């Protein structure tokens, strides 16, 4: 569809490089679907994008209340972008609670599109507002567009066979339609999606399609908008085939790929926990990939079943979040002691204890690296973005099987539920790392080791190689139980050397920016976007700042000491109280390592990082 054929085509069309929209409403209002549709359509038109859903932990908090507000933010752009955006340019609110919760984030001068149909006295009361914010001046300084979506949808669907209540459920598509008009997006992807989604209930598909069109056409009303916008296709993205992907999706596919590249079948033992459950859901649909998924009775059974599967020659995986990791700790020690491959995925969330299950935090790093009884070293990896979770998951599988060790893979709520365009890898470029099982009985010793210090892997059922393993200390080579003091020292050292040896198989991390200078910003995990964007912007403003992002957080890659020497200071922004900084200070004590911490349950913004860099510059 070309712009000139559209309603409102006579209005001025402005080009914008990037826009951040946040949809917010009640958790029953379908804001996640609305956001996802806007995302798919923006991907379809070729924008670069990043998204961040923000939903309450409560499934259905009382309707219209502040705890029940669900939001979805999308940043779409014709330029290369790294985060879902610091502050929305446009805030679409379906009720007063959504406005009250989200208004503080809106950019000064930003646009509010409010559904006035839900701003009645009872709605205001539910949102604990004494006055109507649309009338009391609290929106001064913003552009406010008022639309009674309830009424418009009811009128648009007068002829619909749906009940009045069902008709009101189409409101989100009306709101989406307005945004499609305002940002000159095509309707077809969503129209098709609705037809497919509600194939069995064509009347529902049709009502939502009508609502979408009605919203789109309402843009034609000149009083509502003075113009419309266009965000052109992003041309700076590397060439290739793309799809939009969420972190938990790509991590799931990465695990399947990792197992396949290792020549193994995948076994997932898991217990439902926010925000990791989607991996269990997704992998349980992959039965035809030979993937076993076992929803265990608890977190402990989940990891133990995975370890049992690994003993049997499968790639055992367990997925969870921080509280679940705490429960799995003892079994991780057993995996360290029995030297079996195992991938433990922690989709971190805000803690301690139950904390804030739907909010982001990176505070499980020290738990991952050190949180076991005894000397129990374990490699720890962290993915940086939704699409990066694919490769990082493969890397976790590689290390687990090549080194016969449990590996912790850290993701978090921000990556898990965020999305971005994923440049699909050349599949043949992914290098297989086939597993060898020992079948030769002659000379077999369960705790003999290869060049990587990995012990041989033997499947039960192999004749002549019957052996016993367990959590008691083992005699070097034979694997028999041993309480010998020298042997314990030796085995402890061997286990540690094996894990530290992983660094010989990993690349030096890539440095962005000058090879030496005032400041090096070191990041890990989901801070990638904010750090990359923040440092880029500061470099463009002449700052002498470089940045490096660590995928391997334990053991740390070779060369960091030398790298740190090239900068006056090192800054480590983390969504915790300075955990990686603490590790880096103990590993590289010669350097001045500054910590930038944030534990608000929210990610860093690009602006946060820029402000911190400025602050440090001013101190010099």
């Amino acid at each position: 569809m070309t712009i000139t054929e559209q309603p409102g085509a006579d209005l001025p069309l402005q080009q914008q490089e990037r826009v951040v929209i946040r949809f917010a409403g009640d958790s029953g209002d379908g804001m996640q679907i609305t956001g996802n549709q806007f995302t798919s359509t923006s991907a379809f038109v070729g924008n670069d994008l990043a998204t961040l859903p923000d939903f309450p932990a409560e499934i259905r908090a009382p309707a219209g209340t502040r705890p029940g507000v669900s939001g979805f933010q999308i940043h779409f752009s014709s330029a290369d972008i790294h985060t879902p955006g610091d502050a929305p340019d446009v805030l679409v609110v379906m009720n007063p609670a959504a406005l009250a919760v989200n208004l503080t984030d809106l950019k000064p001068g930003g646009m509010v599109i409010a559904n006035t149909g839900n701003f009645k006295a009872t709605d205001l009361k539910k949102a604990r507002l004494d006055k109507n914010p649309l009338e009391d001046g609290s929106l001064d300084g913003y552009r406010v567009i008022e639309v009674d979506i309830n009424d418009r949808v009811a009128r648009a669907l007068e002829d619909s066979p749906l009940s009045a209540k069902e008709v009101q459920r189409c409101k989100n598509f009306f709101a989406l339609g307005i945004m499609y008009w305002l940002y000159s997006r095509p309707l077809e992807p969503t129209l098709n999606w609705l037809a497919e989604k509600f194939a069995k209930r064509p009347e529902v598909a049709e009502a939502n399609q009508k609502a979408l069109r009605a919203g789109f056409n309402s843009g034609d009303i000149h009083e509502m908008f003075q113009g419309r916008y266009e965000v052109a296709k992003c041309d700076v993205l590397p060439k290739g085939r793309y799809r939009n992907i969420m972190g938990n999706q790509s991590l799931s596919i990465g695990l399947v790929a990792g197992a396949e590249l290792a020549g193994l079948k995948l076994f997932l033992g898991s217990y439902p926990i926010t925000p990791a459950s989607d991996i269990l859901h997704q992998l349980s649909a992959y039965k035809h990939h030979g993937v076993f998924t076992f929803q265990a009775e608890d977190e402990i059974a989940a990891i133990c079943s995975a370890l049992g599967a690994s003993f049997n020659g499968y790639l055992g995986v367990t997925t969870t979040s921080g509280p679940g990791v705490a429960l799995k700790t003892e079994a991780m020690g057993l995996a360290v002691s029995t030297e079996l491959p195992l991938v433990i995925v922690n989709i971190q969330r805000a803690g301690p204890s139950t904390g804030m299950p739907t909010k982001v935090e990176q505070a499980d790093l020290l738990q991952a690296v050190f949180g076991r009884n005894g000397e129990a070293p374990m490699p720890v990896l962290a993915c940086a973005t939704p699409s990066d979770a694919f490769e990082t998951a493969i890397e976790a599988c590689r290390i687990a099987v090549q080194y016969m060790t449990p590996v912790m893979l850290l993701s978090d709520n921000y990556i898990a539920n965020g999305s971005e365009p994923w440049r699909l890898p050349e599949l043949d470029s992914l290098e297989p790392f086939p597993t060898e099982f020992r079948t030769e009985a002659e000379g077999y010793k369960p705790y003999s080791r290869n060049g990587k210090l990995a012990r041989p892997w033997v499947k039960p059922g192999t004749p002549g190689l019957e052996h016993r393993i367990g959590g008691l200390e083992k005699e070097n080579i034979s694997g028999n139980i041993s309480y010998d003091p020298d042997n314990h020292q030796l085995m402890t050292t061997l286990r540690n050397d094996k894990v530290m040896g992983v660094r010989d198989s990993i690349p030096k991390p890539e440095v962005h920016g000058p090879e030496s200078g005032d400041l090096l910003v070191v990041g890990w995990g989901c801070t990638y976007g904010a750090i990359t964007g923040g440092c880029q912007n500061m470099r463009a403003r002449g700052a002498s700042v470089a940045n490096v992002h660590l995928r391997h957080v334990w053991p740390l890659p070779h060369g960091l000491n030398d790298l740190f020497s090239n900068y006056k200071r090192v800054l480590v922004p983390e969504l915790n109280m300075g955990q990686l900084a603490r590790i880096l200070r103990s590993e590289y004590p010669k350097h001045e390592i500054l910590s930038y911490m944030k534990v608000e349950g929210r990610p860093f913004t690009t602006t946060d990082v820029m402000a911190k860099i400025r602050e440090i510059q001013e101190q010099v």
Partner: protein
Amino acid sequence: MADEKTLTKKDMKSDQEVRWCPGCGDYAILNCVQGVLADLGIPKEDFVVVSGIGCSSRFPYYMNTYGFHSIHGRAPAIATGIKVTNPELSVWLVTGDGDGLSIGGNHMIHMLRRNLDVKILLFNNEIYGLTKGQYSPTSPIGQRSKSTPFGSVDRPFNPLSLALGAGATFVARTIDTHMKHMEKTLRAAAEHKGAAFVEIYQNCVIFNDGAFDDVADKKVRSEKTIDLRSGEKLVYGKELDKGIKVEGFDTEVVDADRATVWDPSTPSPAPGFLLCQMDTDPRKPTPIGIFREVDAPLFDVEMNRQIDDATKAKGEGSFKDLVYAGDTWEV
């Protein structure tokens, strides 16, 4: 190959020195298990013995099979991962009253309800042995132990009631000093398709010596125990002159000719439940033998069937199909 030749008990013994206390009931059980397993016609390499933590859980080290000595209470979960990923293996789980009913109680009931095809040997000595003498979830009220110097006030579990309540498809009890009965019971457990739960009264000579003497001692055994045999009358006594009648919601001691004919495969587990509760009544004999034996779908088989069916229906998947899926676009 091993499956071509007949195994002997000796083949099942590992080269590790057995380190239980002299006189421990575990020796008799180990001896019996080695004999039964050698006779099953299963190749040695297809056995996996899994255990948790406790005296009994040292068991895998003494078996010349594949073995996994895991962590406290978690053997059922480890065994689940093993059995599901290779249903061909014969998986044996060795646990105790502390390991299996206290710290691992949750895993135990879930393994039983799922009907995972593993054989569970629960050594019940009504005490914590390896931690040196604390009361366990099967210790009777009043039991004096290191942690109950004034006597236990905990009501104990009846392991068989628990297993029946969890939906176990095979439930039995035997005694460490009753070699013939143990052998017969373990063989029946081995032949059962599904989760087979066997409680073994096991004497701890150090911390709870003689716990079962009032029923298990050879001198009183025939009067104080009754062996539940499928298709036979529930009779006991030296002269087999006494019997048990199961009627309504209770059991009563009757003359042998009025005794109920035992059927462990009734649709309801209720008769087995009534019988296993008899040990709380000193006037009634303590039942041993098979309380329940029914068929149900096997968890490990069903899980594999789903994978096979999905693979047949959709063809064998590759991760490559997953990467290039959904809406994609070219830049």
